[in-house]
């Protein structure tokens, strides 16, 4: 993907956000409003161009007779192994999913590793096994790479960067400007599991809570959806950092339409709900790494759901919202009380409550 700096944990970008005092804060890497302002105020002024400014999950470029998708992501997750996965599975899934949601079939991955002095070779081998297995599952290979080792005091454990190239399905153009009133929002299963699993593993390693990361490569499942309804999927996002709230609020802002989510329709496991309540955070704000938010024409909803539910990563698929007429670019949640409230992109780093 373009210009994201990390997954769920800590990261850095550059300076420039209002009120930052000229220094990078962890929240600048949180994938929320502060990350957006960093991109807008610091990165785009230097690097902006027509492709980059689209800020899609992957850049789409003409490559001879094909359209190519290119994406890159850095992975700094701590701990590097967490319930449900590890940094290797994450690095492949994140990049593959960024290509897939742009309608591209991944054709090759590049893997950069920064390993800290003292890291166990056995652990590195385990991570590489995980990379290989996940890539095989997605039907893609790591075709080039780079390895650097830094001193103990320069980093923490291991960081991975994966870039991916994909070929975009012919005739397909997934873009927020394709979205129309009446379109439906579909998700392939319960949300918030990756972010919660990592937060709990990091902050409360002794707590036994049954939340496992959903990290998984979705490219094959998404390809089957596109084969089934090639003309009726209009846009897709993988709701990673910033969660479903970030993806849905972005969709509203970029389409200029009202997006309505139905709280009672959004799948959330009991364990994830309890963990989020304990930490005082909103499940909508929490990162996913094995979810895709699909915007489809209403007539195709049943077909999309059926295809998703045939897949191991789509058993919990559900229609969770719709696009409405109002041209205000707002995302709204209809709550189980029958009330309404705004859904905004989270601010930055997720901070637990104190009472």
């Amino acid at each position, binding site marked *: 993907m373009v210009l994201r700096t990390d997954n769920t944990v800590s990261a850095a970008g550059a300076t420039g956000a209002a009120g930052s005092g000229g220094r990078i804060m962890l929240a600048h890497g949180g994938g929320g409003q*502060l990350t957006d302002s960093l991109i807008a105020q610091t990165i785009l002024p230097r690097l902006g161009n027509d492709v980059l400014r689209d800020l899609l999950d992957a850049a789409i470029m003409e490559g001879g007779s094909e359209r190519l998708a290119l994406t890159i992501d850095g992975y700094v997750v701590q701990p590097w192994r967490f319930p449900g996965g590890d940094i290797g599975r994450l690095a492949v899934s994140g990049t593959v999913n960024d290509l897939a949601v742009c309608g591209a079939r991944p054709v090759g991955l590049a893997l950069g590793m920064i390993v800290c002095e003292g890291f166990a070779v056995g652990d590195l081998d385990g991570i590489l096994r995980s990379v290989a297995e996940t890539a095989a599952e997605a039907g893609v290979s790591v075709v080039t790479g780079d390895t650097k080792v830094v001193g103990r005091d320069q980093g923490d454990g291991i960081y991975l960067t994966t870039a991916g190239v994909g070929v975009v399905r012919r005739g397909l153009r997934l873009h927020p400007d394709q979205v129309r009133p009446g379109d439906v929002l579909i998700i392939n299963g319960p949300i918030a599991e990756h972010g919660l699993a990592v937060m709990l593993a990091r902050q409360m390693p002794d707590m036994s809570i049954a939340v496992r990361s959903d990290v998984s490569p979705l490219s094959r499942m998404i390809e089957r959806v596109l084969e089934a309804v090639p003309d009726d999927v209009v846009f897709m996002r993988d709701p990673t950092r910033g969660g479903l709230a970030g993806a849905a609020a972005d969709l509203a802002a970029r389409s200029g339409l009202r997006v309505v989510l139905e709280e009672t329709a959004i799948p959330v496991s009991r364990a994830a709900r309890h963990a989020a309540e304990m930490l005082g955070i909103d499940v909508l704000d929490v990162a996913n790494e094995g979810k895709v938010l699909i915007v489809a024409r209403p007539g195709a909803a049943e077909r999309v759901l059926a295809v998703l539910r045939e897949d191991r990563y789509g058993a919990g698929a559900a229609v969770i919202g719709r696009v409405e007429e109002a041209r*205000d670019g707002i995302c709204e949640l209809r709550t189980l*009380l029958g*009330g309404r409230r705004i859904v905004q992109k989270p601010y930055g780093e997720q*901070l637990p409550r*104190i009472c």
Partner: protein
Amino acid sequence: MSRTPAECGEALGRLRAAAAALGRAVRFMEVCGTHTVSAFRCGLHSVMPENVTLLSGPGCPVCVTAQGEIDLLIDLALRGDVTLCTYGDMMRVTGSSGSLEKARGRGADVRVVYSPMDALALAAARPDRQVVFAAVGFETTAPGTAITVLEARRRGIGNFSVLASHKLVMPAMLALLESGRINVQGFLCPGHVSVITGSEVYRPIVERYGLPCVVAGFEPLQMALGLALLAEMVRDGRPALENVYRQAVSADGNRRAQQVLREVFEPADTTWRGLGTVPASALVLREEFAPFDARRRFHLLQRHVPEPPGCRCGEVIMGVCTPAQCRLFATVCNPTNPVGPCMVSSEGTCQAWFKYRRTTEAQAAQERGGIAAMETGGTRRAPGSARDGV
């Protein structure tokens, strides 16, 4: 606890029936940041009867922490020998010069912890560092601090100390009532705090001020039920103390926690942002725990810092004005660049309004106009007023 829409609908039905029978406007107040956030998250305000308003009182511990105290934390964090441990909510609170989050960006060693025991473990592991825990919160978090101080003494961990800013809810509620500045007809009493204090502590509000009190949890159903009971008691002219959160809150509370609090802390007067000095509303370490008191260890002197010009957080906390009535709200004050304390914490009233209720800045301005009209005797629900939510 049930989350079914049917039961919520039933509770809301009772609230609507009582409100209709009342035939006049009533205002209730919650004094718990978790209630504030829960009400906004579940869209409670948008389904309440037009003549019932739920105000947010001084229930967010971060919001009521005086700016001078934040300054002390930042100064401490910027000392080279100190590792400052804090709950996450404190990271973005602005003192007179920046926040802990920004201090961390400048190189200060600031760690977010989930429990004071994590800070103590860090102190034990790093005897070369002075580890200070920023002890903020109401009766809910104070027992954890007390137990950690006892544990530090038992284990003789000399490089650990706490900067205690704990506050007590009940003195603040009484101070609000005594001030004569608030106009509320009942209280939705906090859930977590009451687990420790017990529900009986609110009895004086019923007996002395004739106002109904309901202790409620945080689920939409609990809050809706709490409001329904309050409205019914006002309708019937029979104020009482009710508890709909019996699965967690008893009449007497958690005696063991209360005893630990008495052992480690003693009450003291303290400044609440927005309320001023409230007698016997803080918990400070007793003399025998002086070695673990960061104020004494580092000879800290708290300065009085005036509130930022134009900021109406004090009135928001008192429930005498809504965020949208503040000229700074959503114009220069927002969660990325908070001016006042209520915009800083995720449980602050202003941030909750900004996050869940504001639509556009134009609408925020419209809300200001609408509410101004409402307060000056205009219609209660002007088009696009805050009560319309989104």
